[in-house]
């Protein structure tokens, strides 16, 4: 019988076998006190079904940990809007996750941060919209700037490592120097300067948010100089403005390779925005186990390997490096998710990215008002 076993294992080996879903992101809720015009949440979030229960989330944690998930992001919406956040953190800690809370800081008072520390939270990523009160409050359509400073002070007081996150775009990218200075004064260990990725609300506001090439180059220059003279160990994560690149990002290291996100209603996706992809059915944790979802579901297998690729990706020597770029970007810009990400200058659709980026050079780019994330805007097509 030993011979039979070896035949079986050969058959199993012949199939593409993904590694573990190392990165698990739980979008606990779409509720959020902010109204950011660049939010990556789907624009129809208000039509989403009911949120998972506490028990559902705890089961997802247990099943994912057994598969090898180890980095856990708790996000949203605003995760602090969930009253069971501390219960979820405590179970995740017991299971051995490294737990990152990704928050606007709104709702982070002393009793909650003390409870989160006790529950075993490891790190807090705090978002700012800008280094100035005026722009921070304009972009989030709230008065939250001072509140965020209080949240930052609490994070340091309770000895959490802090990543200060700022999404960059046309309206704040000229403030990178001030943003880095603010992060330094607040004692952040890391700053994430995330150039806007155009999905969700940011896609709707793309024309108003797109910076000019000159703005991008100036910001990169400021960042380089800051890195060279930084006296304190503050690290900068930089999410590249891919519309200004010639090769696409290796999005999610390939879909279904290391990352899984669970949306508030329990849908499991291989990237934050994948629900938009037509013709692909994504599983739900209410009706499937995490192991089935990760290894067996059509949604997670669809873009694994390279069988799905079209030319020029299919025969491209660089496909193992960037996996053809971002499927959502390919779909949004070309109407076909299997096309090359048009950021790539080998794509026959590259002119679409170039013209969108060039549009930002025109002076009337800001004439159209921003559409802020809100329930009512979410229900309007």
């Amino acid at each position, binding site marked *: 019988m030993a011979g039979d076993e070896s035949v079986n294992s050969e058959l199993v080996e012949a199939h593409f076998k993904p590694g*573990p879903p*190392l990165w698990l992101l739980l979008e606990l809720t779409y509720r959020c006190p902010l109204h950011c015009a660049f939010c990556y949440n789907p624009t129809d979030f208000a039509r989403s079904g009911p949120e998972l229960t506490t028990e559902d989330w705890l089961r997802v944690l247990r099943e994912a940990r057994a*598969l*090898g998930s*180890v*980095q856990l*992001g708790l996000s949203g919406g605003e995760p602090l809007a969930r009253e069971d956040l501390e219960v979820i953190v405590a179970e995740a800690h017991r299971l*051995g996750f*490294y737990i*990152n809370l990704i928050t606007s800081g709104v709702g982070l008072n002393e009793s909650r941060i003390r409870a989160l520390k006790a529950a075993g939270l*490891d*790190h807090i*990523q705090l978002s700012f919209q800008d280094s100035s009160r005026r722009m921070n409050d304009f972009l989030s359509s709230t008065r939250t700037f001072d509140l965020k400073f209080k949240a930052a002070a609490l994070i340091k007081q309770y000895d959490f*490592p802090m*990543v200060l996150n700022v999404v960059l775009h046309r309206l704040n990218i000229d403030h990178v120097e001030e943003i880095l200075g603010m992060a330094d004064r607040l004692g952040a*260990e*890391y700053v994430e300067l995330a150039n806007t990725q155009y999905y969700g609300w940011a896609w709707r506001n793309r024309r108003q948010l797109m910076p000019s090439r000159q703005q991008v180059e100036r910001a990169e220059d400021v960042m380089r100089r800051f890195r060279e003279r930084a006296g304190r*160990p503050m690290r900068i*994560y930089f999410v590249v403005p891919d519309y200004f690149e010639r090769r696409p990002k290796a999005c999610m290291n390939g879909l279904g390779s290391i990352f899984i996100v669970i949306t508030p209603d329990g849908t499991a996706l291989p990237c934050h925005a994948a629900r938009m992809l037509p013709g692909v059915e994504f599983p739900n944790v209410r009706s499937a186990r995490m192991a089935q979802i990760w290894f067996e579901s059509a949604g997670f297998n669809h873009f694994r390997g390279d069988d799905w690729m079209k030319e020029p990706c299919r025969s491209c020597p660089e496909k193992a490096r960037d996996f053809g770029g971002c499927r959502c970007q390919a779909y949004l810009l070309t109407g076909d998710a299997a096309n090359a990400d048009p950021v790539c200058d080998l794509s026959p659709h590259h002119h679409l990215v170039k013209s969108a980026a060039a549009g930002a050079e025109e002076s009337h780019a800001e004439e159209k008002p921003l559409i802020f994330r809100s329930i009512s805007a979410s229900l309007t097509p």
Partner: protein
Amino acid sequence: MNDRSIDAASRPAIERHFRLQWESVQNAHVLLYPEGMIKLNGSAGEILKRCNGRATIAQIIADLEDAYTTTGIASSVMAFLILAVEKRWLVMNP
């Protein structure tokens, strides 16, 4: 004490914003930090798991030589420890 100078009497410890952990699914030790993870090879894992802030580098080397019945690993262990300090995974004499 100066945590930048490293010698056989230094006592290395994992920097407080990193967490060293065994991951059975990956069959490896990993270092976890905000939004990131470093998968360690076997030797790196064996060295780092002994960096508890109490053992000196001399003791760690002796312990490794004992555990793997080998000798002459001092210089390569020291080279790794210096790299780990540069990468801020380790601090000396906390």
